[in-house]
């Protein structure tokens, strides 16, 4: 079953933009982090996949910055 969602790009909230970065822009890093959790999910503890998450975080921050720069230039 697939819901038919009506979503317009004009109503991009900051959270939705952030969501795009986590799933699309940084999908490689997200996948690496997910795989690390998958490998240890029987015994997860704090910062078990810290390294992978940091890479993921760096990518997300860069993506948000790039977006800001772009929006400034476009306006």
């Amino acid at each position, binding site marked *: *079953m*697939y*819901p*038919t*969602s*009506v979503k317009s790009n004009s109503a991009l909230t900051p*959270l*939705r933009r*952030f*969501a795009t970065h*986590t*799933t699309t822009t940084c999908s490689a890093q*997200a*996948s690496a*982090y*997910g*795989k690390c*959790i*998958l490998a240890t*999910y029987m015994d*997860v*503890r*704090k*910062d*078990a*996949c810290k390294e992978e*998450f940091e890479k*993921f*975080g760096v990518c*997300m921050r860069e993506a948000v910055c790039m977006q800001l720069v772009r929006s400034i230039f476009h306006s």
Partner: protein
Amino acid sequence: MFSGSAAFRQAVRWPAPRIRPYASLSSSPINPGSVGPYQVFDRHAKRLQKDRCALRDGGARSRTVDYVRDEVADRMIERLLDIKRKFNTILDVGSGPGHFSKLLEPDTTQKVVMLESSEELLHRDPDTEFEVEVERIHADEENLLGVVERNSQEAVVSCLSLHWVNDLPGVLVQIKEILQPDGVFLGALFGGDTLFELRTALQLAEMEREGGISPHISPMTDSRDMSNLLGRAGFTLLTVDVDEVKVAYPSMWELMEDLRDMGESNAVVGRRNYIHRDTLAAASAIYKELHGHEDGSVPATFQIIYVIGWKPSPKQPKPLERGAGKTNLKEVL
């Protein structure tokens, strides 16, 4: 000394005991210091969430996310049609905008009474969308006996609303009380496996990022619990079955947005109102790796428990006594 303490007791006599609502009589509180049923859900917050979701974009968002409830209502109406009886009225407890009531036909019932705690959601859709006569009652589902008379209903249905009720045993008792003898209760509610993907993803993300977990998905009942609870509430001829609705989403974010628009945001008492963005990003990554499909979408499971129970009546068919059989099964088989 003794008389003194007796006089003292006379002086500070406890206030006359309040008449406790019926609901609280039926369940023993888990927290022994409190009176009444254990409070799991913040009913006020839930009502606000439902009101808000019905108002968002003039109800358009709420209508977009009707797909789960419409699907379940559709499966539930089949079960009602199996009952060969024509009703004068049916009471729909926790009706929402009437997902189930809209499917009722004049062949089944003349009238439907919708009861819902969120006024905005109750009045979201106009009467013209219904095929039978509609009456709407804005009241709390937990206090049925306050608005509906005992022994007054031929049939009570509830489609996906009982999972936000604090005192499920008490509400079932109330439903039995408002039914006429030989009246039927037909319900659908979310089972414990509902949204297990989101639950596990958020738990793993919180554990790894923050080193602790907090409840984000409510506790839900089990099919075994349901048959016990129905039996305890006094229903007979029970039928309980479990079904699943699986929905595919582009990612965890769309699922969470749709849940919010359904009015199904978290309403557990003592919940954290805030999830850190890092945790959410981590959960989204885990969700996709742990549960994702090959085409990149992620599944969300809604487990549905359907229940049917009848209020006892002397006219109902009953099992024969043990040993009353005349035919030897050996001869038949």
